[in-house]
């Protein structure tokens, strides 16, 4: 599995920690987005053509995303079981993500949708989450995971709020692939092979850019493999 290559955080304030359960999750500030965008562009500038092409294909084409991630799931994350072309492209993305990690000096809180089984609905979602994600449970990602730094960006009919939850993940890892403050886009690519631990589960409120509020079930996760790198 690719190892973490995160840069040092120059100040504890630049770490991002999980919000309190009753805190309203708000969009990322303009200053935060600008700073992350600067680091993103600096990292892209240094990417070799092969890593750029492999990453671009993975994150911009849903069919490619499914193909490579399904292959990783079938192999339980072991790239040695994949064909040469898939293994080569995945390892190029691994190295690209590590380049983004080296260029980043901030912590992240990343949100991703998780769909619950078909038998789950509004009336039993709370109990299902409590039973399946008790504090201390370890969650593994064999595949690449996509998400965003804000909750409103991952709203979708494919993960309706009465049959899905949101993973709220504190980590230093992955690649910020969002934009600066001109576009509502704070996308983030997490590396394959991550290990996170459940820190809590509850319902949480979030604010959209237009000021309206939304509410989702959240499972809070903390990265188990991130190095302590604060100066």
């Amino acid at each position, binding site marked *: 599995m690719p190892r973490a290559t995160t840069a040092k955080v120059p100040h504890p304030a630049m770490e991002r920690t999980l919000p309190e359960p009753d805190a309203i999750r708000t969009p990322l500030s303009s200053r935060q987005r600008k700073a992350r965008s600067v680091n993103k562009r600096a990292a892209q500038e240094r990417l070799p053509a092969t890593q*750029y092409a492999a990453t671009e294909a993975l*994150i*911009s084409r849903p069919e490619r995303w499914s193909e490579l991630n399904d292959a990783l799931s079938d192999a339980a994350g072991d790239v040695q079981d994949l064909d040469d072309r898939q293994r080569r492209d995945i390892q190029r993305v691994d190295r690209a993500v590590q380049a983004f990690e080296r260029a980043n000096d901030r912590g992240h809180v990343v949100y991703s*949708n*998780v769909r619950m089984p078909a038998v789950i609905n509004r009336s039993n979602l709370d109990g299902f989450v409590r039973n399946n994600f008790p504090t201390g449970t370890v969650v593994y990602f*064999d595949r690449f995971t996509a*998400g965003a730094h804000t909750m409103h960006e991952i709203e979708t009919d494919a993960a309706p709020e009465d049959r*899905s939850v949101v993973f709220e993940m504190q980590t230093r890892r992955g690649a910020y692939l969002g934009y600066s403050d001109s576009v509502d886009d704070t996308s983030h*690519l997490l590396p394959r092979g991550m290990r996170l631990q459940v820190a809590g589960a509850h319902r949480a409120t979030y604010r959209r850019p237009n000021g309206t509020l939304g509410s989702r079930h959240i499972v809070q996760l903390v990265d188990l493999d991130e190095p302590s790198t604060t100066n």
Partner: protein
Amino acid sequence: MSWTDSHGRPELRMHPDIKRGVASYRTEKPLEQTAPDTADGAAVDSSTAQPPKRVAG
């Protein structure tokens, strides 16, 4: 005008359907809450919504 790097490549951008997609994961419960027959953990492909083998708790 859109930003391009010094190699003339456009800025990397994630497809919105990928960003909003569902994550796939495996879980391993804490030891004191894990029944003997689930000690290896439960695999959940969220994209196909397979439930864990057993719900502890």
